[in-house]
């Protein structure tokens, strides 16, 4: 199993968001060239889970060209940390819209 989130990117449209589950998990937002802009999660206090979080993302970004992908995951906090660490390992920095966490670990995964 890959430790990277390798699901296909989908356009961030109202229809695609409405079809999402209301479950907990992690998600990524990218620009039209599939460069990751933000890694987020739908946690225990997210109303309507991933669907609610992605609806907020769509509302916030308004405009075509944004992409997203999600992963339903009950371990959303540790998976979120893992995705941030993998992004740092692969790109040398966090996605541009993520704030630097108080303490982020360092991992050295095998290349994808």
């Amino acid at each position: 199993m890959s430790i990277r989130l390798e699901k296909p990117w989908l356009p961030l449209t109202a229809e695609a968001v409405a079809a999402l589950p209301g479950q907990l998990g992690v998600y990524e937002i990218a620009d039209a060239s599939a460069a990751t802009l933000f890694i987020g999660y739908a946690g225990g206090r997210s109303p309507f889970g991933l669907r609610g979080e992605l609806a907020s993302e769509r509302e916030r970004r308004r405009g075509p060209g944004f992409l997203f992908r999600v992963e339903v995951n009950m371990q959303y906090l540790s998976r979120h940390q893992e995705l941030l660490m993998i992004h740092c390992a692969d790109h040398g920095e966090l996605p541009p819209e993520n704030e630097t966490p108080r303490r982020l670990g360092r991992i050295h995964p095998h290349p994808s």
Partner: protein
Amino acid sequence: MDFQPSDEQQLVVDLVRRFVEEEILPLEADLDPDASELPAEHFDRLREKTREMGLFGLDIPEQYGGPEIDLVTRTLIAIEMSQHRAGLYAPCYGVFGGAGLAQLYEANEDQKERYLYPTLRGEKRGFFALTEPSGGSDPARAIRTSAVKDGEDWILNGEKTFISGADKADFGITFARTDPTKGRGGITCFIVDTDMPGFRVRRVVHTLRSAHYATELEFENLRVPGANVLGKVNQGFAIANDRLSRNRIPYAAGCLGVAIRAQEMAVEYACTRETFGEPLAHRQAIQWMLVDNELEIRQARWLTLAAAAKAESGQPFRTDAAMAKLVASEVGSKVVDRAIQIHGGYGVTKDLPLERWYREMRIRRIGEGASEIQRLIIARDLLGRSLH
């Protein structure tokens, strides 16, 4: 043996209880239900408060700057500190400070300068890596990581798994086989820096705990200076063993604190929730659950405090710590399970802390020596040489 807290102990216990109620519980209302960290501004503010209370760094020995508090009192405090949602694995979110890796107190002065003192000053973080993919319950035989002498250095090759905090650490304590012809007499303890070439955190291991993960480590021709051998060559197993026994008392106290809080919640809910025209508390089935909880909590409390008292007095306490850890972790699981049953559907929602405790408490019967290992330790003490 009487374990009624003295007036002085009760004062400290009440102080910590108020701290949990007034400072921790209100913050938890806004945090993610699985969170294990406080936002920086709250963490810094509360850490300052614990310093003012004279309770920061509770487990640091007095000669290294810790407060002079005996182990029984520290155990009573640990029971209080865990009585909140994140309390089992992140009691009070760490604002009371940690003691660092206990083995470093036995290090030589050079090692203390490089690792212990910076840890106590909050400048460095360490990890403890014993378990390997080949096993964790029987490390003396399971350790396959090798260390081969090369001049003044040692070359380590191997893997470690279920290691907490290695990805955020500056250094760690690990164990490798230095004499393959000997079992437990062929293991040496090393201090490794995480920036040494050949040290790699290979992946995150997700568990039932959402906020906290373990890591998997790889040592590939990791060159460790001879000055980083902790203790003596081939005598590392005693260092690992000593740490395991000592940790079992606060580990038991954490389970006990959560069990006590779950029981309080269950009693309160049983008295207020009505079914078929009467409070749940009027049902014998519910009463018996609450009675079983209370009996088991008191049993675990007595064993935990007895182990602490024995360790404090300098007597051998390995068996007592095993009994405390075994009973408290198993009682914790049963009490939380019954509390969920009493709460019905609400018990399994993220609105209440019970579902998190249920998941995390399951790990406690495996971590720091599985229940079966504790029974083995107790059986060895009872039966002695007749087992060999």
